């Protein structure tokens, strides 16, 4: 051993506090996600946007094991009817309406009210978007809309930036969970600021759901390792070459990341730490163990 191998600080500095609960049993049932008092057996939340057809979407939803899935609210058309809602009902998956496409508090609140009436849920994934190119949240109006919807009795899950300050403000405004982005919607760029996500999860008193930007399974696992309580994926699955297989991969990744997060990773170090003992090692002519010591 040398004295120069002090562990480096984890890059994700404020790691989530170790869980004090009993170690997880295999399977989600022993380690459920609880949002606003509702227990969910899967930590993977699915979106339905981007699927080529309802049959492909159905296969992906089943493969994902999700129990909570987002939908958008749009003007009724006779062609589509109410088929997405009917599909979720048939699969026993709770619908989570979003306010996608809303650029103002006013539009978001009315959309949420319509969703509550149509889908008979007071849960809403609140999106207030600033512009079409980035689809980034408008933090000021998002906070305002969160306050208003909480006042109106909604269970509000705001889609937010990876800003730890805003995440706290949303929680203080009564959000039931906060949903920071990894990167902009649909980009598949993964988690661009893992440090911020770790800061958010370390300080949050409500579940943190990594939402947007996930491109593949390792990034979903990373989100969980950073202390997120759940991950939401849409495009990463629905636009994958094989959505059903990717949905299964995401399910496994979220479980794996969660387990790893609870298991407690080893600290990062500058130098190697042998996993085999040097005790009793053989010597050949000319070998000196002394030379190995720095």
């Amino acid at each position, binding site marked *: 051993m040398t004295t120069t191998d002090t562990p480096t600080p984890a890059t994700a500095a404020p790691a989530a506090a170790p869980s004090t609960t009993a170690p997880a049993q295999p399977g989600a049932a022993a380690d459920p996600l609880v949002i606003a008092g509702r227990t969910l057996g899967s930590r993977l939340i699915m*979106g*339905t*946007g*981007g*699927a080529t057809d309802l049959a492909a*979407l159905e296969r992906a939803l089943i493969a994902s094991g999700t129990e909570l899935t*987002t*939908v*958008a*609210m*749009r*003007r*009724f058309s*006779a062609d*589509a*009817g*109410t088929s*997405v*809602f*009917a599909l*979720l*009902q048939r699969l026993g998956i709770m*619908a*989570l*309406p*979003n306010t*996608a496409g809303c650029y103002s508090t006013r539009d978001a609140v*009315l959309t949420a*009210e*319509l*969703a*509550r*009436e*149509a*889908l*008979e849920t007071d849960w809403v*994934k609140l*999106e207030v978007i600033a512009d079409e190119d980035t689809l980034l949240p408008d933090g000021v109006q998002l906070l305002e809309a969160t306050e208003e919807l909480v006042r109106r009795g909604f269970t509000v899950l705001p889609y937010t930036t990876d800003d730890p300050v805003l995440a706290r403000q949303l929680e203080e405004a009564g959000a039931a969970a906060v949903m920071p982005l990894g990167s902009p919607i649909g980009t598949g760029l993964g988690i661009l600021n893992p440090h911020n996500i770790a800061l958010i999860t370390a300080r949050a008193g409500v579940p943190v759901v990594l939402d947007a930007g996930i491109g593949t399974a390792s990034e979903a696992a990373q989100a969980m390792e950073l202390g997120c309580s759940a991950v*939401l994926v*849409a495009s990463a699955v629905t636009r994958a070459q094989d959505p059903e297989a990717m949905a299964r991969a995401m399910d496994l990744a979220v479980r794996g990341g969660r387990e790893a997060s609870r298991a407690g990773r080893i600290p990062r170090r500058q130098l190697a730490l042998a996993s085999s003992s040097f005790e009793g090692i053989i010597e050949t002519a000319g070998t000196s163990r002394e030379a190995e010591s720095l």
Partner: protein
Amino acid sequence: MIPVTINGEPAEVPAGWTVRDLVADRIGHPVGEDGRALDGRALGVAVALDDTVVPRSRWAATALAADARCEFVTAVQGG
């Protein structure tokens, strides 16, 4: 007939038409007094008149007024 706007499109509906009549017409199924399908199933649709949601329990009692602006929505793929 009275003029109204439904999902941004000008339309004419019979005088005395209620929100329930409108919903039943558009979805092509009868709607119960409680604003649900006749088997009690949730329809998965909602209506706002002039930016205010009309609860389904009031559909049967809410007539469409002349020049009413009606938004009639449902869940679609998204998010």
